[in-house]
């Protein structure tokens, strides 16, 4: 066709032959628009923005059970701390205690250092290198920065690697390009609660988008609690935190994007109790740094190559004097220093490629390297840096042999310094019953490698060269915990009713559960160090061990109903049973999950841009292990009333929030701790 057209031209040279020398000039001629800084609306290239890696996967297609806590739920919940948002995920247990950061567990097995959930911010793992838990109150990120939280409610080592054990929480931050101008946020309420924040943004709509948010908050989570039964007082906790977070994206070309985030958090915690001889009132200082840089090339609509680097640093400082009395000689009183001084760092590098391999086959392949470093004389008995490196290869294939059937085969092979080589496979099948409903069957194996503490702990308090007290320690190298699971799910979107349903039943078999056990001087399973001279030999120390095997069976569902003009209701329910572990290494294990947990969030749109929301959170009786204890049945109600103002669609609002309308509630350990309720007024003004 080209030839026919070209041959009939007066001068017999084809357009193609002229293309070379004139192409550049021709393009320059076209660039009259570019000179004006304008785009070609019809044929101009546009960066591929909403690709599979950016879109939340439809629960109909997901190979694992997924809950999305979206922005509407986040705002309506009234929660001011990120960990509290996980109360909205079925089966998740959230607790706070005055002696450290809050704890989040899924389906039980939680303790003060709950570490069986992998938590990520924009895809990068933020679990502490020390314990493997998350220092929730020290995240360099605030609720206002969060766009949505994607919660995988089960093991998913095949996609996220070792330690994606009981669940995966991915906190997705708000894209800087979706925000502009400046905003001031203030919240103030009972118990001296103060929270001031500013948000500054780039102009928006440009190739370089950025946001800087900063806040300072002061809160009292626990007042001293008087225990009538024994007539003693228990710990309190007051926190001050300064947080800053900078996020930026540079669209280098229509294919390439560079992202950079840095967040810092620092502040003081006042903890302890006057009556505690070993944990008196004192101040602790915490600091955290997260730095994330990434390059992403969208090769085509279904192929993306990404390279990410993440650095995490944590530092804790806290010193106090411990007083111990000899059990039989009251005159013999010894005071020695105790501390929680520690430093930990992580470097994480990951390369990942997602692509379509054939019409019905997509694949993902990645490689990751991670190094972790920690130093704490108090926790490890040495002032040296302890180092560990891990490497992993992960991949998955998704095959659609038939239109309604999707088979997902994935796995992660990880070499872990603490536990050797581990392979976490997963097979999932999704069968679409129709366009709006699907069945899912998934099965696989997941591992949790021992944390640095579980591998190397030797927690001591010393008086000179003499060890006066031992906390956590390790006698024998531990093996990774293993879980084999099977999950059967049903997901449906009942459009005419505005209802989404997500239900599942599952069974998980735990092997080599890592627990800690207490022992007293002379009866512990290893040789006591020569320098260990306890004042009270009856005081317990704790050692980690691979303990019980057991089984967990559960069922859970979420109903998400929405009616335009009325509002929304999100109901989640979970039933859990732990059994087949007799004799348990810890009798709290089978009771560590409440038989029933419920969350209900009602959001009611009212005339005049008012909105009311009610949160209901119920748990049956259960136990937090190792440091925690029984938590009674709780029915908690939260209420929030807000009114938007300013231009339609703006985030400007004034709100009144009451968290725990019934007042103080038992948290983590019924006998010892009462969490304070929150009542605060919030104002957000943007301009």
């Amino acid at each position, binding site marked *: 066709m080209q030839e026919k057209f070209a041959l009939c031209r*007066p001068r017999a040279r084809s357009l193609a032959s*002229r*293309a070379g020398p004139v192409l550049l000039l021709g393009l*320059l001629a076209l660039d009259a628009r570019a000179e004006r800084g304008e785009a070609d609306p019809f044929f101009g290239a546009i960066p591929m*923005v909403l690709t599979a890696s950016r879109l939340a996967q439809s629960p109909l297609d997901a190979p694992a059970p997924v809950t999305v806590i979206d922005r509407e739920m986040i705002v309506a919940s009234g929660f001011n701390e990120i960990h509290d948002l996980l109360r909205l995920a079925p089966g998740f247990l959230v607790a706070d205690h005055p002696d450290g950061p809050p704890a989040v567990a899924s389906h039980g097995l939680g303790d003060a250092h709950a570490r069986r959930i992998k938590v990520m911010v924009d895809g990068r793992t933020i679990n502490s290198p020390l314990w493997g838990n998350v220092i929730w109150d020290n995240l360099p990120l605030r609720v206002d920065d969060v766009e949505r939280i994607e919660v995988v409610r089960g093991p998913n080592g095949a996609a996220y690697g070792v330690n994606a054990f009981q669940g995966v929480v991915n906190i997705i931050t708000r894209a800087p390009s*979706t925000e502009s101008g400046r905003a001031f946020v203030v919240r103030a309420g009972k118990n001296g609660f103060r929270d001031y924040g500013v948000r500054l943004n780039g102009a928006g709509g440009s190739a370089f988008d950025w946001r800087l948010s900063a806040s300072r908050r002061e809160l009292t989570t626990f007042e001293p609690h008087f225990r009538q039964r024994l007539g003693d007082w228990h710990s309190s906790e007051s926190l001050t935190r300064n947080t800053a977070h900078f996020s930026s994206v540079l669209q280098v070309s229509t294919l390439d994007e560079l992202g950079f985030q840095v967040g810092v958090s620092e502040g003081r915690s006042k903890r302890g109790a006057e009556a505690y001889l070993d944990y008196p009132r004192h101040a602790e200082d915490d600091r955290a740094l997260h730095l994330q840089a990434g390059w992403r090339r969208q090769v085509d609509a279904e192929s993306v190559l990404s390279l990410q680097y993440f650095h995490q640093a944590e530092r804790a400082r806290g010193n106090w004097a411990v007083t111990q009395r000899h059990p039989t000689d009251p005159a013999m009183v010894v005071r020695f220093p105790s501390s929680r001084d520690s430093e930990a760092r992580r470097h994480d590098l990951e390369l990942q490629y997602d692509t379509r391999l054939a019409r019905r086959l997509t694949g993902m392949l990645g490689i990751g390297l991670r190094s972790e470093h920690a130093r704490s004389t108090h926790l490890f008995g040495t002032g040296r840096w302890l180092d560990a490196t891990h490497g992993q290869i992960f991949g998955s294939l998704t095959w659609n042999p038939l239109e309604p059937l999707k088979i997902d085969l994935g796995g992660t092979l990880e070499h872990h310094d603490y536990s050797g080589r581990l392979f976490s496979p997963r097979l999932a099948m999704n069968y679409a019953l129709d366009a709006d409903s699907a069945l899912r069957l998934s099965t696989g194996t997941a591992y949790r490698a021992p944390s640095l503490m579980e591998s190397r702990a030797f927690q001591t308090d010393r008086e000179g060269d003499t060890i006066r007290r031992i906390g956590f320690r390790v006698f024998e190298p531990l093996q990774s915990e293993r879980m084999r699971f099977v999950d059967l799910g049903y997901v449906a979107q009942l459009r005419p009713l505005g209802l989404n349903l997500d239900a599942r039943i599952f069974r998980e078999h735990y092997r080599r559960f890592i627990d800690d056990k207490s022992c007293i001087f002379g009866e512990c399973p290893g040789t006591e160090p020569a320098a260990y001279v306890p004042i009270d030999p009856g005081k317990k120390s704790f050692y980690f061990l691979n303990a019980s095997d057991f089984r967990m069976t559960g069922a859970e569902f979420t109903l998400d109903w929405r009616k335009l003009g009325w509002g929304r209701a999100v109901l989640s329910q979970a039933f859990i049973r732990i059994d087949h572990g007799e004799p348990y290494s810890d009798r709290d294990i089978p009771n560590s999950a409440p038989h029933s947990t419920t969350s209900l969030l009602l959001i009611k749109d009212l005339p005049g841009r008012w909105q009311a929301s009610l949160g209901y959170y119920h748990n049956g009786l259960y136990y937090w292990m190792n440091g925690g204890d029984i938590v009674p049945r709780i029915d908690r109600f939260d209420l929030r009333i807000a009114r938007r103002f300013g231009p339609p669609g703006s985030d400007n609002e004034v709100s009144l929030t009451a968290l725990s309308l019934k007042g103080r509630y038992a948290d983590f350990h019924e006998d010892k701790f009462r969490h304070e309720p929150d009542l605060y007024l919030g104002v957000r003004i943007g301009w």
Partner: protein
Amino acid sequence: MVTSVIRALVSRLLPGCQRVALVLAMLGLLPGPDGFSVQAQAMEVAVLLSEAEGRGQRFAEALDAALAPGMHRLVAAGVAGVQADAALLGRADLVLAVGQAAAEHALRASAQPVLAVLVGLRDVDRLNGAHPGRGLGALVLDQPLERHLRLVRAVLPDAKRVGVLLGPDSVLQLPGLPGAADACQLQADVHEVRQPADLVPALDHLLFAGDALLPLPDGLVSGPAAARTILLTSYRHRRPVFAHSAAYVTAGALAAVFSTPEHVAMDVADLLAGAAEPSAMVRKIHPPRRFDVAVNRAVARALGLVVADEKALRERIANGGEQ
């Protein structure tokens, strides 16, 4: 039938250009397709490209294939600004300028009637402003507003309000919007942005109440950076974007109506077939008749939408957008 028999016969006897020229000459005496009379005077149409390759060349090839044989004589006039055939541009009955740069060159270098194609409404407006009195004709890439809104109606049967995002160029289309929205039984909330900094507040405004967002073609609103903001913000509000190019759909818009160079070529072929003289085509803006629909299935899935296939959507648009 007669035409095809003669074509076949000649193709066996004569090679290459001679064959084509002879066929064109002979067919000039025969009745043409679609009932258009070939008694009309055949025009010499100079085709001036903005670029040596790409969509302009695709257009030229498609036009060559689509044009009724013998109707008019298409002659390549080179590339605007580079080796353009000044003599041809000076004598042709009609200059077919492919792209904005070619139109600009043609209006400067030729006194003959100019029909611009593969241009937008704002290009035509600017060219007419720069060359008053020339009476530029154009077959534009901008889809009729009603066609955009029919797509919204076809994809979202329950939609009530659509946020229409305008920029400095597309604000030209504002007067036609109420009528088009009424025809589709939609309420159009309109917001105009004048600079990139206005974009996010405008999006928050439109997405607050709208069931969907419709950014109309515009130099500001359709740029890569603005598109990224539009797509991310719309997804944040869980609202679909209806766009005006295939690239926008690949980037993350839910669906779009758009015309390809091939569609435009066929539309131009129809125009030429029905035109006895250049004046019938110039001084007018012709909307594209042929169009295609693209849907991003991944976005539909993520938004929990079930969207009919493209063929069904085209039919619904042709029928007014209703299912």
